[in-house]
């Protein structure tokens, strides 16, 4: 079975600027994959290379086994991209736009059932005959997503689909997208909201300055970057053999990194033996945001 997306040795230069410096990435069919990184890390460039809006300086990308350059028609048939900007055609209504969009991909009236499903799934049913110009910002965003799905692509790329979108739509969108994912669609997501990536995505790639700095399952990523932290207020000196586990120490406050929850017991008993009094205990979950900041640095600490 071909990978949903296979990226091999991709570089992209804009003049002297190297936007991507050698990306290798394989995304399997049916995955829910997150592409994270600070602004300017190269996420959008990578997406534009996948969709054929840009041409790579070197390297290859295949969508469902089809090269985006030499076999671009098949590659584009397999791909649905939701652009970041709110763009729309002011001449037509939502349903017309979706029919046109599906038509460009060769889909005819037989596809109308699917169009209805998308319109309903995204809560656009009562706006289906409204001109794109008259939709509110949130509705335009939904229409944009609907348009990208019009030809029922097996691989769906959502480039920051929830930027500036209210909670209701975000939830509705994720319910619908998760349903598509369960049906076998591959979903690739870039987002500013790391908690979204954490709850939705099975795997995460983090980009920094045009390189993949981390590629792992979300779970593994959270675990390897200390799944939990134990924060204590103590009176006395922490014994030497516990020093390696300390992440941070400030006055009487000590933060330990925990590989697993069992270490809490070890730390506490070691402190008791050393006759160090524990004044306060807090157990903290590490989220993707901590991992993210850890890996890509705190500069421009947003995805």
């Amino acid at each position, binding site marked *: 079975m071909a990978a949903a997306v296979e990226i091999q040795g991709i570089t992209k230069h804009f003049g002297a600027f190297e936007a991507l410096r050698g990306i290798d990435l394989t995304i399997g069919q049916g995955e829910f994959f997150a592409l994270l990184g600070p602004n300017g890390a190269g996420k959008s460039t990578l997406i534009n290379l996948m*969709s054929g809006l840009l041409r790579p300086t070197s390297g290859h990308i295949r969508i469902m086994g089809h090269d985006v350059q030499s076999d671009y028609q098949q590659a584009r048939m397999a791909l649905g991209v939701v652009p970041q900007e709110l*763009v729309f055609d002011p001449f037509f209504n939502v349903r017309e736009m979706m029919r046109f*969009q599906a*038509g460009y*991909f060769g889909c005819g*009236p037989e596809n109308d059932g699917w169009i209805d499903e998308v319109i309903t799934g995204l809560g656009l049913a009562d706006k289906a005959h409204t001109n794109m110009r008259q939709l509110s910002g949130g509705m335009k965003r939904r229409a944009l997503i609907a348009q990208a799905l019009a030809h029922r692509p097996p691989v769906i790329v959502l480039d920051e689909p929830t930027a500036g979108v209210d909670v209701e739509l975000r939830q509705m969108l994720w319910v619908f997208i998760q349903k598509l994912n369960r049906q076998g669609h591959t979903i690739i997501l870039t987002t500013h909201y790391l908690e979204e990536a954490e709850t939705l995505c099975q795997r995460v790639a983090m980009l920094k300055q045009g390189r993949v700095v981390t590629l792992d399952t979300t779970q593994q990523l959270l675990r390897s970057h200390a799944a939990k932290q134990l924060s204590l207020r103590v009176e006395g000196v922490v014994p030497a053999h516990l020093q390696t586990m300390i992440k941070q120490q400030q006055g009487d406050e000590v933060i330990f990194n925990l590989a697993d929850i069992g270490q809490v017991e070890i730390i506490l008993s070691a402190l008791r033996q050393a006759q160090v009094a524990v004044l306060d205990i807090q157990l903290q979950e590490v989220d993707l945001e901590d991992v993210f900041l850890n890996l890509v640095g705190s500069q421009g600490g947003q995805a």
Partner: protein
Amino acid sequence: MMRLLSTWLNPFYWLDDHISPRYRGMYTLFKKELLRFWRVAFQTIASPILTALLYLLIFSHVLESHVKVYDQVSYTAFLVPGLMMMSLLQNAFANSSSSLIQSKVMGNIIFLMLTPLTYLEFFIAFLAASMIRGLAVGLSIYLVALLFVDVPTVHPWWIIAFALLGSALLGTFGVIAGIWADKFDQMAAFQNFVIMPLTFLSGVFYSIHSLPPFWQAVSQLNPFFYMIDGFRYGFFGQGDVSPWLSLGVVGVFLLALAWLCLKMLKSGYKLRS
């Protein structure tokens, strides 16, 4: 009843269901481009017709008794093919160019760039829609003008040939301009400084034989002159130059522009980088 009527009047009704998937992409883009101008037909069809009729009214009223271009042909009749061709050319150009610049500025051109449409399909769809708008405007002017003046059609095939070639040439020109321009401002400049002077100085309102020798020679460098002269030959059976010469010049220009346009589209000029 209304439903039946609208079905019958909808030329796409049958095609929507029966077009082969292989051509559906191109067909859809063509249809969208047609509907785009049809939705604003008041601006894209009715207003150029009105403009042409105003020209006809004013010029014929002022000049009818003063200017005689061909024997047996009144000045008003002489004016009709010129005005038809001028409007046909301007509207064929306006259709593809304004559609492209608009979707570039709005950003929604991205939804076309994401599709499997080939550059050739892209070109044909935009061209065909432009031609239809140009031809629709030209034909309408003719039909309305018939209410006021008798215009003969001596060689209908020449009329059809030049109408098709002229609308194709300017439709292609419009695609080129639409891809090249980044702003409405540049497009307006293109329209006002290139298209307008070339059409007005091509003999719409006069025969170039009425010009001094120098300006006659200059006019003969203008490709628009040949489109109008060849077109007018179809109506009156006489023109300033042979229709075959006009056909050759217009054909060569069309091929050259189509070649340039396809080259731009294939390379992804200003659309993909």
